[in-house]
């Protein structure tokens, strides 16, 4: 019987205690075995420890983070605690969840070649493997391109090429499907099957591919690992839905209740051209957004979603056209400063605005700037903490989990009372349940929401209305029930 490439038993891990708090437990006695030449997937909502487990298996945690690790594990024939990661280049390959954390050169070809240089592979062999690996992932024309200019999906493909070049015995892929479209997900699975490579995937969302190409499915939740499917058996979809990893079958299941929404913002003849000849231009003839309504703005990468979002909140000043806000019964043209005060924009990365030492101070900042009394601030902050399930007020936000930082970001804007909130791809890295919970909390204050996403299924499930944008123009604006998926629909990703 061929030895298992990955076997863990009774694994328990907790991060070191910080600032007088108790150690943060992440894994509690988990056991798992991946059969030879098979693919497994460990699913889990955000912050359940998937990335931590992936890095433990690669020998990176607790080496770089500290913490207490107990239990036994054999990964590609060795215990990762007994070898330095640089000695496991050909046995364990890892793709990080955040591609920007793993790219460190200024050319795609040197990025792919780096591990081979470390192994002392001769130049001719390196050149051949770099060319082959980039061709495998469709990046042959990108050899001298700076990885910083690649899209999220292209960066993930580049990292897959880096692994393909050294061809490790075991592949560990953390949320690699999130930014790949169906074509590349399938291509990756085919590559692994062709090479007979065992692989362990981690993901916070379900995709039908997991039902067909994987032998072992598990869910990581509350520090424990539960089997969803073994040996290719049908997965327990109820469990996955309970964990918020897949959307319930009924479309619109996460959608807030319909209401009588009042028009809030109008766009007329908006035009914005980026500097430079032949560069992208945004042209929106008309658009109306309403308070309490959840609209999804979907489109391919580069279609103009973020550009439109930034124009609506006054960060970009259009060269032509007007954006008007309702004032009483009328609509009045709004200046960029007025848009700044009325329309919030939640960036995909919640860390752009975090800078204070406690949750309380982050939440209170905007209220203090608006001159609200301290006792009123305290009450509103506590209410926001309850509504958004935030940690205690003295917790440093920068030390919170990613999901908690997202909720803090949402709570901050909720407290500011913006009439319209634009949420730019904030669903990434969150489970469906967490994201829907966030939306409900935001809508409860009566704000209108414009969700920028390229997850069409999510858009159908949660939005009242779906707006499709392509090449800077709105091509469709219809109720979500009428937004049926079809091949080639811009923005369809799952």
């Amino acid at each position: 019987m061929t030895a298992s490439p990955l076997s863990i038993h009774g694994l328990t891990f907790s991060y070191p205690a910080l600032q007088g708090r108790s150690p943060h437990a992440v894994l509690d006695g988990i056991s798992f075995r991946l059969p030879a030449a098979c693919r497994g997937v460990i699913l889990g909502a955000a912050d359940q420890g998937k990335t931590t487990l992936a890095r433990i298996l690669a020998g990176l945690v607790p080496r770089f983070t500290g913490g207490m690790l107990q239990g036994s594990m054999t990964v590609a024939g060795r215990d990762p605690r007994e070898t330095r990661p640089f000695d496991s280049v050909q046995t364990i390959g890892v793709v990080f969840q955040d591609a920007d954390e793993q790219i460190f050169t200024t050319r795609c070809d040197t990025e792919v070649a780096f591990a081979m240089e470390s192994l002392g592979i001769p130049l001719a062999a390196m050149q051949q493997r770099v060319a082959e690996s980039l061709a495998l992932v469709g990046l042959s024309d990108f050899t001298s391109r700076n990885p910083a200019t690649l899209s999220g999906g292209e960066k993930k493909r580049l990292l897959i090429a880096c692994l393909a070049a050294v061809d490790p015995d075991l592949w560990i892929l953390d949320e690699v499907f999130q930014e790949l479209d169906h074509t590349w997900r399938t291509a990756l699975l085919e590559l692994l099957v062709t090479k007979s490579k065992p692989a362990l995937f981690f993901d916070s969302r379900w995709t039908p591919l997991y039902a067909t190409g994987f032998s072992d499915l598990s869910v990581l939740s509350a520090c424990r690992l539960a089997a969803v499917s073994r040996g290719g058996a049908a997965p327990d979809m109820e469990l996955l839905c309970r964990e918020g990893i897949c959307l319930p079958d009924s479309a619109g299941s996460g959608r807030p209740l319909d209401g009588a929404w009042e028009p809030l913002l109008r766009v007329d003849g908006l035009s914005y051209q980026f500097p430079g000849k032949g560069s992208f231009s945004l042209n929106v003839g008309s658009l109306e957004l309403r308070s309490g309504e959840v609209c999804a703005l979907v489109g391919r990468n580069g279609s103009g979603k973020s550009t439109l979002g930034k124009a609506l909140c006054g960060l970009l000043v259009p060269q032509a056209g007007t954006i008007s806000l309702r004032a009483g019964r009328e609509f009045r043209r709004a200046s960029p400063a007025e848009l700044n005060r009325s329309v919030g924009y939640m960036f995909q990365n919640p860390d752009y605005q975090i800078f204070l030492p406690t949750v309380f101070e982050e939440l209170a900042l905007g209220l203090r700037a608006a001159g609200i009394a301290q006792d009123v601030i305290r009450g509103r902050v506590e209410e926001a903490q309850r509504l958004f399930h935030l940690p205690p007020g003295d917790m440093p936000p920068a030390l919170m989990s990613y999901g908690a930082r997202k909720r803090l970001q949402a709570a901050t804007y909720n407290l500011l009372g913006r009439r319209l909130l634009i949420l730019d791809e904030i669903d990434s890295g969150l489970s469906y349940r967490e994201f829907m919970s966030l939306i409900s909390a935001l809508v409860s204050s009566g704000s209108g929401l414009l969700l920028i996403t390229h997850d069409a299924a999510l858009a159908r499930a949660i939005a009242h209305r779906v707006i499709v944008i392509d090449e800077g123009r709105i091509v469709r604006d219809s109720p979500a029930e009428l937004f049926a998926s079809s091949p080639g629909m811009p923005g369809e990703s799952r």
Partner: protein
Amino acid sequence: MAVPSAFLPGRSILHRLDPRAKLILLVAVAACFFLPGPRWIAPAYTVFLALLVGLCLGFRELGMVLAAVVPVLAVICVLTPVFRRGGDTLVALFDVRLLTTDGLAEVLRLVSRFTGLTLAFYAVFRTLDMNEMVISLRWFGLPYRAALVLTIAFRFIPTLFGVYQSSREAHLLRMSQGRRRGFFGRTMPVLTSVVIHAVRQIPSLAMALEIRGFGRLSPRTSFRSLPSGRRLVAALALTGGLCALLIAPFVLAL
């Protein structure tokens, strides 16, 4: 806030010159502006460098460089004679010696030196890609880890520029109500967010380096390198010849 980049792509002689030769010649040219010699050498080399920049990069580029140094040259011209009053008087006002022969000579020397050095460095770094500069420095003996530090820095500069820009926007939107704060009141929170973002990346980046083999004791090979063999010999021979030409006037003047 545009991401700056000194490199200007092109096909001129300067672009095609081996990067190692460019760096050696830069040191040689810079040294010439400090060697004792006839007074005409520094201005002559400055004019030559100006022509080189104009012909290889365009006279518009030359104009931009000269326009940038004019304020500095003006300061040199006005203030240097105040500190150099030896020699014969050339300009006087109410018995005050405003300009003397020594002062004028010093002005010419400093103006030539400052302009010449500016043009020499400009000519090299405007035609030298930063990646090639790092590879060249490795050839000269820069340790691998130092080269990797530079590579990482060049990789993260555009990323952190983007983070700064986005953080500015996020803070602007969040603090759009209330009284307007001053420059440092607005900038310090943004810088704090940017610094936290940068520092958080460090452990993950270290992990990424190690899982790709950084730290192994076995010798590394190199994917990118500069031409060797006959091309290198030709480049070094050309460099040697040019250095000899540069230094010849000083030797002949002895």
